[in-house]
């Protein structure tokens, strides 16, 4: 078996995923600022280029040119490693998320995913757990009380919400009978989207995803009014940018996971009713996946400018008293459905 086509295929896929991710992150920041402004009756950044379209590049340039300050009290090594962990974890999670159906190209069966591993979902869960280290170590190594509080909060929050997240995913796995993202999407396309089949699980997963990505109703690790900037208070220049990128990359992962697990991945309902050629269906499916991710991202941004931040005890209560029982309830519900309909 020739190894070269496989290597080329992998490299092309990795480049595609990386460039799409980084570009989306850059423009996500831009759209976040524009949408925030629109919600607040303002205009937002519209000066750099047409409608401010070059704003992300100006921001990156500014961050690159800034002085990189390391506090005297900081633990230099860990202070240096923490943003790298965060960014690396955030970017490598994309490897298992499929963005289109299997297709025939250049005489090869090509799967639209970098690594089609049979434990894909487990891999994502493992990496998001690893992401906690980046934030916690950043807070701990900075030698500042605000950073430390932010780091500790984030570890407590992410660990608590990982429980309900895991149980929500368990419901999806029961239906699909596999940990492979491809199988999960295919099972949804052949039957029903999981969002309709298990609405409680969908809600608990979305809420947990918000908590995992430290987005606004649960952004206690950052909590600007109380903690200055939380775990990244003592970071500047490109290291700060690394955290910033990681946060937005995590947001994209969360959206892609929501789409893959609950909204049918690349599937378009009733597309087989229309007489379309295979390649048209393929391109429409890929487009559908990105549109779905875009809509979920828009939802993420809109929620940020709608719902105020939780208090810390409210956050923990919501996590353990509400989300955890609900996700178990969902698991029972799914089991009952499987028992009745023998899916």
């Amino acid at each position: 078996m020739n190894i070269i086509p496989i290597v080329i295929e992998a490299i092309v896929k990795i480049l595609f995923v990386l460039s799409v991710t980084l570009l989306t992150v850059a423009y996500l920041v831009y759209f976040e600022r524009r949408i925030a402004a629109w919600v607040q009756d303002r205009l937002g950044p519209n000066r750099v280029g047409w409608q401010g379209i070059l704003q992300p590049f100006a921001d990156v340039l500014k961050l690159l040119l800034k002085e990189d300050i390391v506090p005297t009290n900081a633990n230099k090594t860990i202070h240096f490693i923490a943003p790298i962990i965060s960014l690396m974890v955030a970017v490598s999670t994309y490897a298992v998320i499929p963005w289109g159906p299997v297709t025939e190209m250049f005489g090869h069966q090509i799967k639209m995913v970098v690594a089609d591993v049979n434990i894909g979902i487990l891999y994502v869960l493992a990496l998001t757990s690893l992401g906690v280290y980046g934030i916690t170590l950043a807070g701990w190594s900075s030698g500042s009380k605000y950073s430390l509080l932010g780091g500790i909060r984030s570890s407590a929050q992410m660990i608590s919400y990982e429980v309900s997240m895991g149980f929500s995913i368990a419901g999806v796995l029961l239906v699909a009978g596999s940990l492979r993202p491809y199988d999960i999407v295919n099972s949804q396309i052949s039957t029903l989207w999981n969002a309709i089949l298990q609405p409680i699980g969908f809600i608990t997963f979305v809420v947990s995803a918000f908590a995992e990505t430290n987005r606004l109703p649960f952004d206690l690790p950052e909590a600007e009014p109380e903690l200055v900037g939380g775990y990244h208070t003592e970071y500047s220049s490109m290291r700060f940018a690394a955290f910033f990128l990681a946060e937005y990359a995590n947001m994209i992962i969360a959206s892609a996971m929501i789409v893959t697990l609950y909204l049918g991945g690349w599937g378009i309902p009733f597309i087989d009713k229309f007489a379309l050629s295979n390649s048209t269906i393929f391109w429409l499916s890929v487009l559908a996946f990105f549109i779905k991710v875009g809509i979920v991202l828009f939802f993420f941004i809109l929620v940020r400018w709608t719902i105020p931040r939780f208090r810390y005890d409210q956050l923990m209560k919501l996590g353990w008293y509400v989300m955890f029982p609900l996700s178990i309830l969902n698991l029972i519900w799914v089991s009952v459905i499987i028992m009745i309909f023998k899916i």
Partner: protein
Amino acid sequence: MEKIRVRKKDLNLFQKTYIPQILQGLGQTFRQMFKPKFTMEYPEVKFEPPSSYRGRPVLVQEPDGKERCVACGLCSRVCPALAIEVRANETDQEKERFPEVFEINMIRCIFCGLCEEVCPEEAIVMSKDYELAFHNREEAIYGKDKLLVPVEKLQDRIDFIRKYK
């Protein structure tokens, strides 16, 4: 809008989940996105202040090109920030006094409008000019060349002062 007080026990189970409220809030923010914006894009669109606005103090220039000021020095006396300097001189004309030097230090000026209020001739008034930026301190001292503004441009403000004097 009337304020309605809702107790937790009055809510039904569906409302207690807060899902309808969250959706309502999301709808509110979504609708807000398409409403007209309040931002003025400054260098292109400029704010036109009302006549009550106290901008840069200016000297009124009569249609014949001379200043209306008679160099009585009251504005200089009343100025709490000591920003105005007046040096008087005389001519052979009917209105014999005129300011030879009239300088306002725009770094000191606090835009209180007392000079305008005290002026017996309506010769110094507050304009609508708010774009005051200098590269150095020398530039910030405005002489007669910068201060004199034709009376037509200041009619708004003069009418406003007459109404409230």
